[in-house]
């Protein structure tokens, strides 16, 4: 389901899609959307639409990633001619171009210094602050990137995108507590985002995945958030996958601790109620049937069920197969 659409590119662009996207460059560069006539006449014959510039921007990104720097420069010049080179967004695009064309880490450092200079002139340029984080990440300095993103968040604490970035940066360093904190901030801003609930549930799960025995309250929280994500989206593959994974894990842990009940009471000293084994079993049944339905409908090619990522469906099927084997 990854069509090469420049207007609304998919959230996951594999290299072949990126290539298909950037191959549209000659077509779009061949005709100018703005007219060369003087001002009042140009309004009459202008062929630009709001989508024109979205298409240009997305094409610019895919041209950069496939190394088509000439097209990227041409597109950037068009955007600069249209919006002026003092626009915050155009400054950022210029920065991205410089980043992409930098040959070595030293060049990238120079781009970083240029960002510092821009920020001295205009400290409110949030997009450039975000680019700084991206450059630090590309330079392989995630600790500095985290510092930069926390500074950004002190100035703009309602930026859900930045909190999500912070959460993922912390998660990449296995700082689960901080990652969960940042993910909870995302939830405060966008409480209905099913993907944010699945993300926080994944973090809770990963924070205890390497522990043996796993921490019951983390698993319970993870279960809670996965439940919320499928409550918000009744066909969310990732949510049901997580639900299935956590319930089968909890099933094992709870039936173990049922044989040794005194151990369980010492473990959950937090005030997170651990669900009863019956609830967990019921949830597992729901998740299994829902996942099986999604896999079946996707495989049979039924219209209206083709929106899932194929890799995700295959993973769900493997999970179901694995589960079927252990039960037999």
């Amino acid at each position, binding site marked *: 389901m990854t069509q090469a659409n*420049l207007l609304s590119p998919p959230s996951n662009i*594999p290299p072949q899609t990126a290539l298909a996207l950037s191959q549209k460059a000659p077509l779009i560069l061949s005709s100018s959307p703005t007219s060369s006539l003087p001002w009042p006449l140009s309004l009459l014959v202008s062929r630009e639409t709001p989508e024109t510039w979205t298409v240009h921007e997305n094409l610019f990104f895919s041209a950069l990633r496939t190394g088509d720097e000439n097209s990227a420069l041409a597109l950037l010049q068009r955007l600069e001619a249209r919006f002026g080179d003092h626009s915050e967004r155009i400054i950022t695009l210029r920065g991205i171009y410089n980043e992409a064309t930098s040959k070595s880490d030293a060049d990238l450092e120079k781009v970083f210094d240029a960002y510092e200079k821009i920020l001295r002139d205009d400290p409110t340029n949030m997009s450039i602050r975000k680019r700084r984080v991206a450059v630090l990440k590309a330079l392989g300095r995630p600790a500095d990137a985290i510092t930069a993103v926390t500074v950004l968040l002190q100035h703009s604490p309602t930026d859900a995108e930045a909190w999500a970035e912070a959460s993922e940066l912390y998660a990449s360093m296995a700082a689960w507590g901080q990652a969960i904190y940042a993910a909870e901030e995302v939830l405060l801003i966008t409480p209905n*985002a099913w993907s944010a609930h699945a993300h926080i549930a994944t973090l809770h799960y990963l924070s205890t995945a390497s522990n043996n025995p796993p921490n019951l309250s983390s698993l319970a929280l993870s279960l809670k958030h996965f439940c919320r994500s499928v*409550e918000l989206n009744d066909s969310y593959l990732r949510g049901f996958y997580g639900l299935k994974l956590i319930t089968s894990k909890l099933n094992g842990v709870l039936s173990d601790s049922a044989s040794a009940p005194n151990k369980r009471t010492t473990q959950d000293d937090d005030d997170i109620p651990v669900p009863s084994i019956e609830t967990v079993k019921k949830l597992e049944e729901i998740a299994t049937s829902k996942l099986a339905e999604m896999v079946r409908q996707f495989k049979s090619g039924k219209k209206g069920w083709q929106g899932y990522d194929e890799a995700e469906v295959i993973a769900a099927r493997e999970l179901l197969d694995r589960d079927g084997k252990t039960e037999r």
Partner: protein
Amino acid sequence: MAALGTVLNGVGALFLTHAVYSTHEHTATFATTPLPLDISLELLTSILLLSLGIVISFAPLKPIQYAQWAGQISREGRHGEGRYTREGEEILSEGDPYAFLGLDSGIGGKGEGRRGFWDVKGKRKEYEEWVRDGGKQ
């Protein structure tokens, strides 16, 4: 359904025009007498037909429950509806409104991530490696 809606709308509009014209003609000739019953009936019929036609030919309604609406987006994905921009790009249906959070590809996933923090160097490297490996699936 669309064809039936168009037929109903057409017939309704015809009746409505006729009823309005008849009313005008009637009031112009006999200004003091009340309107005959058949004209009122024709008017009411035309309104009924038009309302029916408009309701039938309406675009399918969106689910009003959040979970179902979100589920529909996940199930169907983004698909074209036959409209194109000037550049030849298809305008797609409504997508995940929280895609900007970039949390859908999981931790350490290979998604695009967040727009503002787009990792251009990493994506270029990924593409170069793909080309070096022969550019296959």
